[in-house]
């Protein structure tokens, strides 16, 4: 499986990382090196093997369905690049 620059552009778009068109061929080449390496996994016989969900056998713990935290608006917003009137501010999303 070889990745061309169009696929590289698509992956960059899905990852929401801007990659300049001039850098796409080099990026595609790097993907191919990594994917070539992981291609070895196709040799392994995995017939009937369950995919690992949890490395240590454990049940996900349950807790009582109650509010246990909150009222921390100032702290939540403290690190925001742009916070206004108690909200995170972002560029216009809908016209």
């Amino acid at each position, binding site marked *: 499986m070889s*990745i061309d620059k169009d696929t*590289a552009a698509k*992956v*960059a778009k*899905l*990852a*929401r*990382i*801007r*990659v300049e068109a001039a850098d796409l061929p080099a*990026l595609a080449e*790097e*993907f191919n*090196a*990594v*994917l070539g*390496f*992981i*291609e*070895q*996994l*196709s040799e*392994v016989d*995995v017939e009937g*093997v*369950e*995919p*690992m*969900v*949890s*490395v*240590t056998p*454990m049940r*996900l*713990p349950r*807790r009582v369905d109650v509010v246990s935290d909150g009222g*921390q608006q100032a*702290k*939540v917003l*403290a*690190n*925001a*690049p*742009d916070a206004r009137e108690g909200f*995170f501010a*972002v*560029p*216009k*999303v809908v016209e």
Partner: protein
Amino acid sequence: MADLNKLTIAAARDALRKGDVSSAELTEACLGEIESAGALNAFVHNTPEIARAQAAAADARIKAGDAPDMCGIPLGIKDLFCTKGVPSQAASNILKGFKPEYESTVTSQLFDAGAVMLGKLNMDEFAMGSSNETSAYGNAVNPWRRDGSEAALTPGGSSGGSASAVAADLCLAATGTDTGGSIRQPAAFTGITGIKPTYGRVSRWGVVAFASSLDQAGPMTKDVRDAAIMLEAMCGHDAKDSTSADLAVPNFEAMLTGDIRGKTIGIPREYRMDGMPEEIEKLWAEGTEMLKAAGAKIVDISLPHTKYALPTYYVIAPAEASSNLARYDGVRYGHRAKLAAGDGITEMYEKTRAEGFGHEVQRRVMVGTYVLSAGFYDAYYNRARKVRTLIKRDFEEVFATGVDAILTPATPSAAFGLGEMSEADPIAMYLNDVFTVTVNLAGLPGIAVPTGTDSQGLPLGLQLIGRPWEEGDLLNTAYALEQAAGFVAKPAKWW
């Protein structure tokens, strides 16, 4: 007392309790060393005010007579741990300026036990790297040099700053984290001890996430006894981490008897790699002999899926990273790119992430995105999860035959030069973790112990892998190896 910064945790604890030294004195000694060690670039955010306040509180507590082992001990904290009000940016520009409003569970536990934070330590960006060369702070430097050479060497990664700081005696010990070898490889490169506990032993809450099913924090220390003391303080159940194990934490230090008579140590044949340097081969054989001489039974074992561990890791870790790092979007914290007129929210995400993430992080996020994307999820991600099951099963089968621990090299080489690998393809760098990554995939505890030096005078380490939750037994085997190896070399001070 002279050279207070060079003390072990155990020696400092005993001196503090006897009243021979104060935490304030220990702390000043370390702060002084950090001040003059800029060339190592190990500490990247210094917190002398916090350190002095914590030391004063520790001294009061010690006087009152009820101080835990870690009380008054000056530590360095890897930048991956969120520390309240102190920059915590995972060595990434995307978290520049981020000051958490909360404290990670690990640092909370250490501070509750009276430990002192000297500052934050350099690392690879988001813990992705094996040489500390992907850091937004620049390279951390190994205090060790090759005989007769002034070439700057890597301290390893991702916990490179932690390794450099402990090896250079800038602090008594440091926290590290390990996703594929990031505690054990740098420990081996700098002649110190580092343990990655069983997955679930140490809470991940407040530790910036890289690959959540693999990440574990652990101590990086000057010897095995210190690793036992500090690990105990870091362990324990935490309701805020749903994968944290609700198990009692033993007194690990009390388990260090050095008696390993009757223990069975496995030597895995698949770890004898093609092209492995003779020095590593020799180190491994010597370590095997040491454990045998101490009364352990040595058996050859097979872990047949070993060669698939690295490719499995390079599917699972990027996949989890691409999901975890989706949160860095320029909205809630850290960097936001300057936008051009007419830019919408998608441009904001794309520009912010292109500016904020370094090259290796971008590559891994995109590889992860690819292996999780429609049409490839089964071929790559699901297949890797199945192979991971087989890798874990290899270990289970070996432990079921009565093997107590497994001895392997920690790294395929001694520390290499900074910049030496820059022309190599990414796979060459990934091979650094060939002996350590299996342990993360199987969720097991692993410890690196320095046992010798190479022909150029650089430290080399061996790795012991233990049964799940049996860190105490593993530490005791490591203690026996440490005593037999008698590694005491220190880097000559040039910084």
